[in-house]
């Protein structure tokens, strides 16, 4: 029984982080209709920012959120404005040009990070990095729990933003029907720029929260990009509720897969769920919940 509950806890805590990664991606996919294959690399950049601030200025990793999120917001803005938006005007054979562009961006970000920080593994060690508390014999990692709580708060904030503010409503409008939104007087190019910024900012928070328990090197982005699009497809495009459930489901599936099938199947479980959802539940969880 201990095995079961410990697996459950591990899955839920990891799922919280995954949800945060998926949220940014789902916003981008909903509004832009493209897959951002540089998503994990955005996260990597944020982790390097946190590392630098921690290492050179002695800032606590969690306080660096104040800096890493806006920085990535800006990076997202710049990339969307100067690299992705211009593509809408470029005549080309493949509509997937924007996706291919994000591949190029991912490569550039990774290699620039390698130039500056080399391929060495870096990590941020704090006093609470490897502490844990116990509830009924089940261990809860302190930093993962903090990350989980912060992830919940950020998600809540995003919700309020999308529902209560004008900008948030505009984003939702573009996500639902960009043509109609434009007729209503919304500048969809501008909304896309802002959405990319918010998406990058969200994944930045995931990176910063992950760093104290994990480690960092330039190639870290790739696997998280994969997880991000799995979560998004699982949850349904543009669905914030879906992304949260998608993240939790992926976290739980990985944990239970690792415990009851084998740790080598951890990644495979996620990929297979992804294919199954794509084929048998197109639209993801959103189709079930209609949110």
């Amino acid at each position, binding site marked *: 029984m201990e095995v079961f509950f410990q697996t459950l806890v591990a899955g839920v805590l990891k799922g919280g982080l995954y949800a945060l990664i998926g949220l940014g991606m789902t916003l981008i996919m909903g509004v832009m209709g493209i897959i951002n294959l540089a998503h994990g690399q955005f996260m990597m950049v944020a982790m390097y920012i946190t590392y630098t601030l921690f290492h050179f200025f002695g800032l606590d990793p969690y306080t660096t959120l104040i800096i890493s999120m806006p920085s990535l917001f800006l990076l997202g803005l710049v990339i969307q404005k100067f690299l992705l938006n211009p593509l809408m005007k470029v005549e080309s054979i493949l509509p997937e040009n924007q996706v291919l562009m994000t*591949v*190029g961006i991912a*490569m*550039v970000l990774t290699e620039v990070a390698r130039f500056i920080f080399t391929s060495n593994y870096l990590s941020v060690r704090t006093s609470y990095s490897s502490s844990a508390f116990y509830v009924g014999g089940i261990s809860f990692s302190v930093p993962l729990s903090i990350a989980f709580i912060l992830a919940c708060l950020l998600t809540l904030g995003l919700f309020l933003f999308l529902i209560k503010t004008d900008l948030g409503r505009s984003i939702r409008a573009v996500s639902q029907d960009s043509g109609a939104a434009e007729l209503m007087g919304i500048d969809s190019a501008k909304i896309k720029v802002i959405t990319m910024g918010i998406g990058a900012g969200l994944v930045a928070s995931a990176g910063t929260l992950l760093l104290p328990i994990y480690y960092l090197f330039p190639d870290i982005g*790739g696997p998280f990009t994969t997880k991000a699009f799995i979560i998004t497809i699982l949850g349904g495009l543009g669905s914030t509720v879906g992304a949260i459930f998608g993240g939790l489901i992926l976290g739980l599936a990985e944990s239970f897969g690792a415990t009851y099938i084998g740790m*080598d199947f951890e990644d495979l479980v996620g990929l297979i769920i992804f294919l199954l959802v*794509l084929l048998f539940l197109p639209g993801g969880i959103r189709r079930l919940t209609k949110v």
Partner: protein
Amino acid sequence: MKRPFGQLFLLFLLLILPLVIREAYYQHLMILVLMWVAIGSGWNLISGFTGQVLFGAAAFFGFGAYTAALLSSKLGLSAWWGLPLGGILSVAIAFPFGWICFRLRGPYFALATLALNEIFRHVATIWESLTDGMIGILVMQTFVSKAPYYYVALAIAVVSIVVIDRVMQSRWGYYFVSIREDQDAAESMGINTLYYKMLSLCISAFLIGITGALYTNYMGFIDPKVVFSLHDISIMAILVGIVGGVGTIYGPLVGAFIMVAVQEIFRSGGFGLLNFIGRSTGWPFMSSITKFVGDAHVLSFGILVIIVILFLPNGVVGDWPVIRKMFVRSKDQAV
């Protein structure tokens, strides 16, 4: 085929190339170029001509490579049987995959192929009793000389270009392009889109699969990370396609040459030129420049992609008139 002359001349030159350039180093680079021509052509057929972007070329490449390797390690046959069989088995994989996943469109199909790529890599890693996992499989090379491999690679490259050229001139090609342009319109015109997308994918998988089998024969060692590599195979195939020219017959040829050349130039510091300058002039900063250039090879790929997509969305071949205008404008004005 307005000028079969040019093509025949090029073919003739490629045929006598190993007789003229006898250095194994350049022959090896040419073999790599020819392999990428075949892979790029395969990618281009399904993605460039039919519009279904393939993000998992390595799935078929690796499948072909493992077919050849397993024939040799498990059945004791020559790995050369992997060439036909690797192609056929890749088609056998492409068939159910396409059948199931072609209901997906655009980026979803691309993601599904990416997932297939990753699934294959994991399975090949985990299934140790069959594939020996990451320990990899060794196949003894048949020839010491490079020439036989060169000619096999050349044959595959020529076949892939000719096949795609023929296909694209036939009715099939017309259907492929109409699916790319507007799938719903194609469907309403009575084209069985699933059937033609399958056809396109199977031809692609075949070409990529036999190239994978050739890779096993030529390199003599494979492991899942090498042949199912998302980065070094699948994305490289896309780069070859988009740099050369999406939806052009000769795009992959040019793209393959550019990509292999770029990789090698950066890796070796301009073929040792930078080192040579550094040594003969004694400038101390030359060695750091050499290191910088060496480190930049993946970066250069990334920048190349961004530039090509922004400014040459149809690749070097597709946008050749644009490139030409940029360089010979002054001459034209003079005339």
